[in-house]
Structures are given as structure tokens and as C-alpha cells.
């Protein structure tokens, strides 16, 4: 099956081509099932690939064709099939399939149905290319592809200004990250002579370059990851991206595209492991982003915005894990988060769909009785997000926090634990405001209804996943996932020895010593307790009104305003960057209008002026014409006679 791995991206690509060419006139409603079937086929092949890898094929290169071969530079379009990529393949295809099916229901009334199911599988194709590539260049192709599809899908309802603007913002911010990726890619080639993962990682181990250069490469790649995975400072596109349809938010901005940055850093572990300070920076940025976004999520009223900031925050956790040298923990959290965050988004979509396209939680309330299935699946997802045992989120998040603590980053651990409390609080708040209490908008409540089966079945599937998928990492540090991924993310390989740390052994190496149950349970107890406190606080405030949320908001007015306005980051960016760009654009426009167009217009005017002058010779009076003929004749005679007699010298 591994040799057939190129089928995995091929099916969604085919679905895209078929749907985009024939969807508008002929296929219409069929585009949904076609795309879903293609993804299902991909998933089946992905399962096959996974089983083959599990059976012992640790690293296989499956070439397709020579992409570029110019002088010294060779880049093959080849797939690297190893535990890391095969795990990602599974996650991407399975979750994409469920969301495709859900979208058939969600987008059912949309005129652009065929268009949606053209871009959606195209996105999956690009993401799979990103995951499969065996070198940075092919990965970049996929990287840009998902950026493009993100733009197309966020701006799906492009006739409205908000989605159009949000799509532009997402793409531009992504592009800044892409610039970082490009610099990293090119520097890698200049330093290592290749962009191939295997080549580069081998050379880093045997003959590492100067720390400064390696640091530059890693910082550049991390900048790319920041853009794609919405970390500080390139995160503000993600909340705005909620203008897109909810399936888009679920797939792209929760489960797949935003995880590309995590995948990039995880894949580049040998590089980052050898650039210690940069790795610490990664962890710090991740932790900072996690707490920053969580604080914003506390006060948002749009249900999708809460989820968006939650995603930014949880991605921060993944980068925190990478930063402390626990890439397997990061991947673990990536997988569990994909399940419960996708579920949270799809559930939100189900709510939005059921109440007639309303997203403001202040108008909801009491929907539990009207949408029981949605409610219970959201509760499962929320509990997973809040890392309540034994759900999936608990295992992955506590592994991250455990690694942070054990590898000597107590500050990051504390930030992570506290953010966990905030997370539990805001998700409790969101679920309570939506489903419990008295309905605040009676008209909305009366018309609310549960979603059709095509939407609720994926919710159930994801709920099962959110509950159970955590056990792939059980027991902690020694579960199936750890053993599976360890050969790919060689945290104990020679590259790791370059880290000149004594206490900070990479926790991936803990395999030799088995599970530290005591340490794990102790740390987990603390973080879970904080999480429970967060939940209780949330229930107390919103179920009982102690303290009353409105009163708290009034009392802490300045802080509250800062949070509701998202720390005014968008306004800051507007002033610092957008306005600068706009004035530059204005200057360029003025140059074009006045100088370039002016030049052309002046030229025309000059020609017309000359013409006007010359036209004066055309008097229409025959006598004038006769005079000019005679005058010319005289000149000729004088000239001829002058030359001939020598009177007029040449």
C-alpha cells in the first residue's frame, strides 16, 4: 500500500477537477457526495499505508517525478512515508471525510454548493501534499496551496465585505509567514546543499553548521509556522476567518491547516534540537499565545470566536510542547485536538444552523432541550478541551504539561496549568450560555431545531473519537503513539546530543525508563484540579450568578474592555502596518495617475497642438494653395540655379 501512497492526494484532486468543471451545470447536488467519496477513498488508502508502516516500514521514499533539476539544485516530487507522515495522513483524511459529510447538510441551501465542494477537496489535496513531501520545496507547494484554499473558503461568501476582507487578511498574514518559510528553505539549501529532509537531517547530525546560521533557519521556519498556525504575532487572521462557513472553520482552522506549522516544526526536530535557544523561544511564544488567546476567549459572545481563540490557545500548547523538546506530545495533542475542536466547531455550526444563522450567544439559551444530540456531543468535546479524564484532551495536554515540568521549564508549566483553568472556564461559559438557562430570545428559541442526520452522525463519530482517541497515548510516555512516532521524530538521535543541556533531556527518551506514574499522576492531579476549579467557577458565575458576570464586567471595566476588544491588536496592526501599506498604495496610485498617465496624456496633447498649428495651412482657399506651389517652385529654381552656377555652395 505504501507504494500507492500517491493515490491519497490523487483522489481529492480528482474530486476537485470533476466538481469544478462539471459541478455548476451538471453535477450540482452530486458534488457533495463525490467529494466525500473521494476523501473516503483516500482515508482507506491512508489506513493501508498506516498499517504497512506499523508493520515495520520505518521510512520509505515513494518518488513521483523530478520536480526541478537545474544545475546543482535537484528537487524530487517524492513522498516520505514514515510514522509521522502516515499518522498525519490518517488524521487529515478521516477528519476531512467526516466534515465533508457534515458539510453536505450544512451547505445544502447554499447557491454555491458546487463551488464549496470544489475548493474543499482541493484543500485536502494541498494539505496531503504538505504532509507527504519528502523535501521542504514540495511541502511548500502544499503549504501555499492550503493558504490559497483558506482564502477561497474564508471568502466563500465573497459578495459580503466582511468575508472578503477576512480572506484577504488571512492570506496576507499567511504570506508574511510564507516569506519566513522561503528564507528558511533557501538558507537550508545554501547551507546543506539540499532541501531533502533525509539529506538535511543527516548532515545536521554529522557536520552541523554554525549556531547562528542554524538559528536563522529555525527562526525563519518558525515565522512560517507562526503565520500558518496563528501564533503571536501572526494570529489575528484566525478569529476573522470565522466569517467562512463553519465546516471550513472546523476543517481548516481547527484540525488541519493550522496544524501545518506544528507539523513543520515537528518534522524539523533535528534542526530545532540543534538550535537550543530558538527552541526555547518557540516554547515561550507558544505558552504566551496560549494564555493570551485564552484570556480573550473568556469574554467573546460570538460562539465561533470563542472556538477560534480556543484554537489559537491550544495551538500554543502544541508549540509549548515542541519548545520543551517533546514533539511526540505535540503531535499527540494535535491529534486529540483535531477531534474535539472539529467537534466543537461542527457542534457550533449545528447550533447556528438550528437557530437560523445566529452566532451571538447572548440570544441563545436553553437550547439543550431543542438540540439534545448537539448538546451532548458538545459537552463531550468541551470536557475533552478542558482536559477532564479520561477523555482525549486530558492525556495529551497533561503529557505536554508533564514534559514542561520535567524538562525544567516550571514557568511554562505554570502558564500552561493556569491557561488550562481559563480554558475550562470559557468552554463552560460557552456551553452554558448556549444550551442552559432561560432562552433569551423567545422567537429564536421557538424556531430552533436539531440538525439533520447527515450533520449529527459526524458529530457522534467525532464525539466517540474525542472520548477514546486519547488512549493511543496510554500509558503516558509509553503508549502506542509514542512507540509508533519515536523512530520518526528522533529525539534521542545524534542531533539531540548537540543540545548542551544536562537536566533537559528530551522527554522522548524517557521510553527507556518506562512510565513515571507517580510524577504523571501528581502533575495531572494539579492541572486537573485547576481545570475543575475553572469549570466550577464558570458554573457558579453563569448558572447561579455568583458573582454576576455583568457585575464583574462593570467592576473590572478597563480590563474587561481590553479583553473584549482583543487587546486592540487589530487596531494596532491597522495603524502600524495596514495604514502604511495603504499610504504606499496611495502614493503608487498617485504616481500612476499623475506621472505615467500624465506623460501619455501630455504626449497626446502635444501631438494635437502640433496638428492644430499645422492645420492652419489648410485654408480651403485655392489661391493659397497655388501660392504655395509657386513659392516652392521658386525655391527650387533658385536652388538649382545657384548650385549650377556655383553661386550657392553646397
Amino acid at each position: 500500500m505504501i507504494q500507492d501512497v500517491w493515490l491519497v492526494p490523487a483522489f481529492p484532486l480528482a474530486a476537485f477537477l470533476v466538481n469544478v468543471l462539471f459541478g455548476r451545470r451538471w453535477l450540482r447536488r452530486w458534488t457533495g457526495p463525490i467529494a466525500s467519496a473521494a476523501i473516503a477513498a483516500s482515508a482507506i488508502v491512508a489506513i493501508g499505508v498506516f498499517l504497512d508502516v506499523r508493520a515495520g516500514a520505518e521510512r520509505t521514499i515513494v518518488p513521483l517525478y523530478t520536480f526541478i533539476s537545474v544545475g546543482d539544485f535537484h528537487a524530487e516530487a517524492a513522498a516520505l512515508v514514515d510514522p509521522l507522515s502516515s499518522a498525519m495522513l490518517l488524521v487529515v483524511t478521516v477528519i476531512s471525510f467526516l466534515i465533508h459529510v457534515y458539510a453536505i447538510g450544512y451547505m445544502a441551501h447554499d447557491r454555491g454548493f458546487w463551488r464549496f465542494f470544489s475548493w474543499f477537496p482541493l484543500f485536502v489535496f494541498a494539505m496531503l501534499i504538505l504532509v507527504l513531501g519528502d523535501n521542504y520545496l514540495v511541502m511548500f507547494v502544499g503549504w501555499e496551496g492550503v493558504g490559497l484554499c483558506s482564502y477561497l473558503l474564508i471568502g466563500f461568501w465573497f459578495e459580503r465585505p466582511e468575508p472578503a476582507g477576512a480572506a484577504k487578511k488571512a492570506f496576507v498574514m499567511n504570506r508574511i509567514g510564507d516569506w519566513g518559510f522561503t528564507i528558511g528553505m533557501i538558507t537550508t539549501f545554501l547551507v546543506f546543499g539540499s532541501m531533502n529532509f533525509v539529506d538535511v537531517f543527516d548532515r545536521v547530525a554529522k557536520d552541523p553548521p554554525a549556531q547562528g546560521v542554524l538559528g536563522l533557519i529555525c527562526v525563519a521556519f518558525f515565522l512560517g509556522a507562526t503565520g500558518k498556525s496563528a501564533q503571536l504575532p501572526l494570529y489575528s487572521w484566525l478569529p476573522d476567518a470565522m466569517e467562512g462557513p463553519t465546516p471550513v472553520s472546523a476543517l481548516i482552522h481547527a484540525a488541519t491547516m493550522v496544524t501545518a506549522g506544528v507539523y513543520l516544526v515537528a518534522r524539523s526536530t533535528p534542526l530545532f534540537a540543534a538550535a537550543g535557544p530558538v527552541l526555547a523561544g518557540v516554547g515561550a511564544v507558544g505558552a504566551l499565545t496560549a494564555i493570551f488567546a485564552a484570556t480573550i476567549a473568556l469574554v467573546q459572545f460570538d460562539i465561533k470566536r470563542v472556538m477560534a481563540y480556543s484554537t489559537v490557545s491550544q495551538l500554543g500548547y502544541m508549540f509549548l510542547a515542541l519548545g520543551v523538546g517533546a514533539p511526540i506530545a505535540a503531535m499527540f495533542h494535535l491529534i486529540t485536538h483535531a477531534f474535539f475542536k472539529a467537534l466543537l466547531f461542527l457542534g457550533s455550526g449545528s447550533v447556528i444552523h438550528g437557530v437560523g444563522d445566529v452566532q451571538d450567544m447572548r440570544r441563545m439559551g436553553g437550547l439543550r432541550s431543542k438540540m439534545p444530540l448537539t448538546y451532548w456531543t458538545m459537552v463531550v468535546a468541551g470536557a475533552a478541551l478542558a482536559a477532564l479524564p479520561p477523555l482525549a484532551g486530558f492525556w495529551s495536554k497533561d503529557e505536554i504539561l508533564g514534559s514542561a515540568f520535567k524538562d525544567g521549564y516550571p514557568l511554562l508549566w505554570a502558564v500552561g496549568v493556569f491557561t488550562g483553568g481559563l480554558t475550562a472556564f470559557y468552554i463552560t461559559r460557552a456551553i452554558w450560555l448556549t444550551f442552559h438557562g432561560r432562552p433569551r430570545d423567545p422567537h429564536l428559541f421557538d424556531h430552533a431545531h436539531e440538525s439533520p442526520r447527515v450533520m449529527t452522525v459526524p458529530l457522534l463519530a467525532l464525539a466517540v473519537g474525542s472520548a477514546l482517541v486519547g488512549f493511543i497515548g496510554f500509558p503516558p510516555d509509553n503508549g502506542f503513539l509514542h512507540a509508533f512516532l519515536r523512530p520518526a521524530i528522533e529525539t534521542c538521535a545524534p542531533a539531540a546530543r548537540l543540545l548542551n543541556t544536562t537536566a533537559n533531556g528530551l522527554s522522548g527518551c524517557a521510553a527507556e525508563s518506562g512510565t513515571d506514574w507517580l510524577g504523571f499522576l501528581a502533575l495531572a492531579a494539579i492541572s486537573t484540579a485547576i481545570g475543575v476549579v475553572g469549570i466550577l467557577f464558570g458554573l457558579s458565575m453563569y448558572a447561579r450568578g455568583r458573582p454576576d458576570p455583568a457585575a464583574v464586567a462593570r467592576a473590572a471595566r478597563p480590563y474587561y474592555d481590553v479583553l473584549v476588544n482583543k487587546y486592540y491588536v487589530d487596531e494596532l496592526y491597522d495603524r502600524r502596518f495596514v495604514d502604511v501599506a495603504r499610504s504606499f498604495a496611495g502614493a503608487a496610485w498617485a504616481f500612476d495617475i499623475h506621472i505615467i498617465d500624465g506623460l501619455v496624456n501630455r504626449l497626446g496633447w502635444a501631438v494635437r497642438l502640433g496638428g492644430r498649428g499645422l492645420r492652419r495651412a489648410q485654408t480651403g482657399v485655392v489661391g493659397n494653395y497655388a501660392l504655395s506651389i509657386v513659392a516652392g517652385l521658386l525655391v527650387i529654381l533658385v536652388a538649382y540655379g545657384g548650385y549650377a552656377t556655383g553661386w550657392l555652395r553646397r
Partner: protein
Amino acid sequence: MTVPLGAFVAVSAALFFIGAAGVLVRRNAVVILMCVELMLNASNLALVSFSRRAGQLGAGNPLDQRGSVFVIFVFVIAAAEVAVGLAIILAAYRNRPTVNVDEIHEMKG
């Protein structure tokens, strides 16, 4: 007594410039055409006199009458030109009943 060549050239020149002056000054289109004819015949005179004198001087072949033959060509061309010119004047007259060139200036600009 031989008439000096200069006399013929002088007459020819005088006729030519009288014709030119007429083209410039006269208002009647037909008269202008006649002045053009005058200019053409002035040049004919010059051609014939040079041709004859060249033959008398004996510089080249005494039977060389090329100048005179050229005059025949000029006759033909003058005739054709008059035909066309008169036709144009007639057409213009039909449009507006005048042959006064000063009054025909609609092609201005």
C-alpha cells in the same frame, strides 16, 4: 541674322511668370486653367528653342530632336489635364453656381 538664344529664353521666362502671376491673381477658375496652359506652352517654347540650337551647334548628332519630341508629350499631357480640370470646374459649378475660386473654401481645416 540669327536670333540669339537668350531672346527665346527670355520670352519663355516672361510667358512662364505671366502665367504664374495669372494663376495666383485671377479669380475665375477657367482663366486660371488658361494661365496654367500658358505656363506649359512657355516651357514648350524653351524646349523647342534649346532643341533647335543644340542641333545647329552640332555638338551631338545633328538629327537629335529629343527636345522637340518632348514637347509633343507636353501637348498630350496639357490636353489631358485641361480635360480633367474643366470637368472638375463643371462639377463644382453644378454644386454651387460659381467659378470664383475665392468663394470655394469649404475644405478649410
